[in-house]
């Protein structure tokens, strides 16, 4: 499968979850495990252009697919995406545990809908739980990227 633009070929047991493949086999530890039951969204990655929960998918199911994790967002030189920059500016994270999942859900949203309304952002982030921020700054950060894009 292709992850963040790099092709990987590995033999893995069919019982291996995608999230463990990313974290343990490829050392891409930006993708977090929160609940391990499909409820919290900390493990969200992009499969093609869709946000999905990598704790609810087997690695073998992603055979041949293209995956983007949070490590795939910023450039190799460390330049942040406008969304990541906006999270920074709007103080959209505290402990940061939920952040990779939030970024991946919001990135998928912005790719489909570059100027989402506050309501659309809320819908897109419904599957992502944050225990720290109270969500407000996260929503503002995502909406702001859309607004900037039109300026």
């Amino acid at each position, binding site marked *: 499968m292709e992850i963040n633009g790099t092709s990987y070929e590995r033999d893995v047991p*069919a*019982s*291996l979850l995608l999230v463990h493949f990313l974290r343990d086999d490829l050392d891409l530890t930006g993708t977090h495990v929160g609940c391990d*039951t499909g409820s919290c969204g900390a493990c969200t990655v992009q499969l093609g252009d*869709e946000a999905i929960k990598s*704790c*609810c998918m087997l690695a073998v*199911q992603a055979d041949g697919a293209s995956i983007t994790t949070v490590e795939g967002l910023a450039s190799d030189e460390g330049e942040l995406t406008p969304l990541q920059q906006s999270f920074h500016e709007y103080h959209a994270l505290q402990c940061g545990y939920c952040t990779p999942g939030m970024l991946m*859900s919001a990135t*998928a949203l912005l790719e489909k809908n570059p100027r989402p309304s506050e309501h659309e952002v809320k819908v897109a982030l419904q599957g992502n739980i944050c225990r720290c921020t109270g969500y407000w700054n996260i929503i503002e950060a995502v909406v702001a990227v859309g607004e900037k894009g039109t300026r």
Partner: protein
Amino acid sequence: MLLREVEYARPATVEEAITLLSEHDGARALAGGQTLVNVMKARAASPDVLVDLADLTELRTISFSADQSALEIGAMVTNTMVISSSEVEVARPILAEVAATIADVQIRNRGTVGGNVCVNDPTNHYPPLLAALGATFTIRSTSGERTASAEEFFVGVYVTAVSEGELLTKISVPTRKPGTGDAMAGITLGAHGTYVASAVATVSSEGVRVALGCVSSVPVRAMVMEERLAGGDLSEAAVRAAAEGLAASLDPPSDVHANAEYRGHLAEVSAVRAVLQAAERAKG
């Protein structure tokens, strides 16, 4: 969480998938995996072979039957596909409206209609919806194809008319005729959460159909209420009167969210709301 070891196959055709499912005891179809993978984590199911249906493109289509009377939804159609389907929008928009309220974006992107009905969790959205709409389920095995009505299809929690070695291939939903109104109402945990009680109503010139979720292991039709409404008076007073006694006629389960009596009450309230909204929509 580590899963128990399992074998994995991703067949390219429906025939191959059925052969795999029928050859191996303990083989199980894998659709979106949004329930099955979690069930395997909890060791509530431990299949020996997973037959991944992901590459069966013929199960990923939404189309019309030859005579245009039904919308045919492939078992592997995801909720996200239902939401954005122009066919659904034209022929039975309630399907998209309900799909958009299932869990969250990530789960809707992976979760399929076929998986949802095969799980037949009483709190799931599709079972009462498809029961109310009078959907038909097409099941294939090595010996051929057969169809089942919703009443025949839903047997119990995690149990449907699809038996070992069989595959659900498509779900046919009658297209909406002019003057038909559909609505789903219920009480959820949080805005788009799991249902504690749910009801789906469809109102048309042929009468009223009401199916309840969460009150039994299968969707329950509110037959007495339907009969009382057959006269066509769908005023609020008439609908409330028709629903009287519905709660008492049910034998719903108790859990942390609602005891049996309260869940029965919520089902009755949901049924009234669904019928009133469907009646409003039937006016156009």
